[in-house]
């Protein structure tokens, strides 16, 4: 499965304004809550996890993959993308500030591993994040990701 197959355009947001990292995480998840992929409790757990353990889902410079424990309310596998208009700090040192969020709903099944492998490959490409910057609309983000992951 390609990342672009999982990424629902309705869960992609560009030019999002966030006050701080909590606001960014909540806003990144709001389409997934609306679509029923995750519960409000799942989002709360994603915020609480960072408060307790530090920014464990800020995975590389400028990129966060917000997620929580599946049992806190992941109903089905889903991923979104959220590009902030201005980056926020997660207290993640060299990986701060964060501008690109990929909210993830991972259930117990291993079905998401292939998609995460695709995301790892994309993030390993230097041109990936700058290509995200060029996207003006959600559909462009999905198309850019589709083109790039098929070229890898």
């Amino acid at each position, binding site marked *: 499965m390609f990342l672009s197959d999982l990424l629902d355009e309705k869960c992609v947001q560009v030019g999002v304004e966030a006050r701080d990292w909590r606001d960014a995480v909540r806003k990144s998840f709001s389409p997934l809550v609306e679509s029923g992929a995750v519960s409000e409790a799942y989002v709360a757990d994603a915020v609480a996890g960072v408060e307790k353990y*530090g920014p*464990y*889902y800020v*995975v590389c410079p400028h990129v966060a*993959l917000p997620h929580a424990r*599946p049992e806190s309310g992941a109903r089905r596998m889903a991923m979104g993308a959220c590009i902030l208009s201005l980056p926020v700090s997660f207290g993640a040192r060299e990986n701060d500030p964060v501008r690109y969020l990929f909210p993830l709903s991972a259930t117990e099944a291993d079905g998401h591993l292939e998609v*995460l492998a695709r995301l*790892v490959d994309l993030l390993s490409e230097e041109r990936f994040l700058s290509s995200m910057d060029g996207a003006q609309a959600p559909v462009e983000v999905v198309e850019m990701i589709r083109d790039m992951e098929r070229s890898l």
Partner: protein
Amino acid sequence: MSQKFRALVCCRAGMGSSAMLKIKCDQVISEEGYPIETSQGNLDALMGFDGDLVITMSDLAEELIEDGNHKYVAGIRNIVDKKEIKEALEAFLASKSE
């Protein structure tokens, strides 16, 4: 068959960050031919883990070290940085050959 070190790649949820980190670690281990095999889990899996090495995001790594985790803990800051992962794994292997 030479001895392989067993590593647990973990994050808090055991789903996202650790899965991505395991994917990149496995790429590095395979390319470099390190004698390390990885499994993936959450903090609960860590409690029952009796292997040699814990690989996790650096913030969680600091927490584990502070908590007095007795296993070797390697913290990774940038999970797509092969060089960082390579250095961390080599430091672990060096500690085992002392």
